[in-house]
């Protein structure tokens, strides 16, 4: 189980959003830290096959990320995603179950399971437009988990979640990380400090630091701020 990124570059006219990045991800949680505009979203969109790189390659166990085979094992929660306002939470998840290739019976069971997991079972029949920001975010997370992904890419997943929900979310991600490759981008250090097996720090489209952070290394937040102040 390896997601390999090799000399990946994305250039928009004169701006280089991602600059020759190379790394590989294995089972476990990887935190992608970086300020706004660091290139995290562009990198993630290339990793899920939504954006074509200007150069470089990404593959998962030799499977290219633009392939159907890869999408079959992929779970993705974009930053600032949309929803269908007239759908209920249950309809929203059932629709994504169909998009992810689950038959009706499996879709019903998985939807019920996920609604319970993200604590939305009581409001399953309510229209999504009536959901709070945190509820919508939880619904998005549930959507990313539908196909029990082997590769889970989460772009700023904790945005809009209250402190209690954040704790629940971290526990959930930690659990998933035992079975899958999880890449979680954020600019909030505490989101990844305790759960990430590995940290990648990005700035101006490049990796500025990567490695495993241990408690005895001190405060990740301080290190992060120091790195970006330099």
């Amino acid at each position, binding site marked *: 189980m390896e997601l390999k990124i090799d000399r990946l570059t994305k250039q928009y006219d004169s701006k280089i959003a991602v600059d020759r990045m190379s790394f590989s991800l294995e089972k476990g949680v990887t935190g992608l830290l970086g300020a706004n505009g660091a290139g995290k979203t562009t990198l993630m969109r290339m990793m899920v096959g939504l*954006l074509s790189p200007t150069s470089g390659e990404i593959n998962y166990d030799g499977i290219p990320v633009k392939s159907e085979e890869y999408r079959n094992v992929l779970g993705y929660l974009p930053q600032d*995603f*949309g929803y269908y306002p007239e759908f209920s939470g249950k309809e929203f998840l059932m629709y994504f179950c*169909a998009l992810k290739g689950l038959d009706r019976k499996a879709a019903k069971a998985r939807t019920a399971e996920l609604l319970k997991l993200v604590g939305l079972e009581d409001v399953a029949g309510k229209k999504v437009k009536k959901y709070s920001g945190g509820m919508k975010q939880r619904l998005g997370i549930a959507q990313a988990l539908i196909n029990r992904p082997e590769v889970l890419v989460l772009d700023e997943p904790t945005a809009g979640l209250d402190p209690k929900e954040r704790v629940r979310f971290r526990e959930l991600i930690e659990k998933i990380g035992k079975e899958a490759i999880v890449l979680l981008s954020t600019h909030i250090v505490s989101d990844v400090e305790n759960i990430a097996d590995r940290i990648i720090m990005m700035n101006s489209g490049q990796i500025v630091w990567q490695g495993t952070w241990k408690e005895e290394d001190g405060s990740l937040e301080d290190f992060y701020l120091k790195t970006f102040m330099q």
Partner: protein
Amino acid sequence: MEKKHCFGALYEFELLKILKNKVAIITFLVLFGYAFIQGEFEVRGNISSQELSKYEEINGRTIDEGLLDELKAVSDDAGNVTDDNRKGYQQLAYWIEEVIGYRAPIKDLDIETIYSKRESNIQEGYEAMCLTPEEIDFWKSKEKEVSRPFLYHDTIRSSGILEGTTNYMLMMAIIIAAGLSSIFASETQRRTDLMVSASINGKKELYLAKILAGMTYAFGCVAVLLITFYAYTACRWGITGMDCMVQSYRPLAQMNMTLGGLLAILVTLLVFGTLLIASVTLFISNVTRNAVATMTIIIGMFIGLFMAGLHVPLKARFLSQLLYLFPGIQVTSRVLYDYRLIKIGRYFTQYQVAPVLYIMLSVVFIVAGYVFYARYEIKNN
């Protein structure tokens, strides 16, 4: 995880999205209400059921010298029938006026003059439309199939049904623009396309599900509106006069066809025109990814092509004939006196070619739309 094809479920959800679109529902309901208004007022005209019998007095009579003499006896020189109980003769006078010209005196008119004037009008039509000798021969052979002298029949109710039907092409363009403009556009505008595109069935199956859902909505609407209009008309007034020849309605028509036959042609053109407009709308929604822009383009294009078709001189034959193939112009009684033909091995009338053309163009738009959809890439931020 094993991939399953979930086309059925995707289709249901895509249809559900359209049916939960408030703009689509409100537009449909307004035009659904209009179907009743048409059934009541367009078909009735200004004539109540009690009065209708006064118009039916001479139905089925041969338009010959005897009938013309009777008209002269009950009308003034200009063909005005003053006796309110002889309305049938007034309708006959209008029919003659359509052949010999508005307000032309009928006092010294004989039946041969009417038929020869009709022929010379048709000849003028041939010249105006720049027909080739082969096309003229085609119509002359068609004319021979029309039995003469013509039988008179009032078209009070039947013309209302036919003209009511012709309104539906514009109504369908409005309904389609309101309902289908957002099918592809809203995915981008709401930013759901990020999650959808990263899903396994997010391309081919979803594209086809969206197309089929859009077509179901369009055909469902046209079926409901037409059935409502015809059912209301049948219950309120009865569907009468559909077995009389088209010459009762449009004297210059050269087809051996009943009004029922003409109605069937208009409905066929309407259905296939709906297919074309829906395909174009879905294509534009896919390309622009903007619902308002799509709506504006569709309605603007409909009005623009309709007006252009009517204003481009007939002398510019190719362009004029091409514009007449536009559904907004085809679904009108013009199909009866557009003498221009299209040669594909043998000669075909415009209305015979139009449905085939609509199907072919629809396929082109759907396939081109898929190519565009498959290549579509999310724009960063």
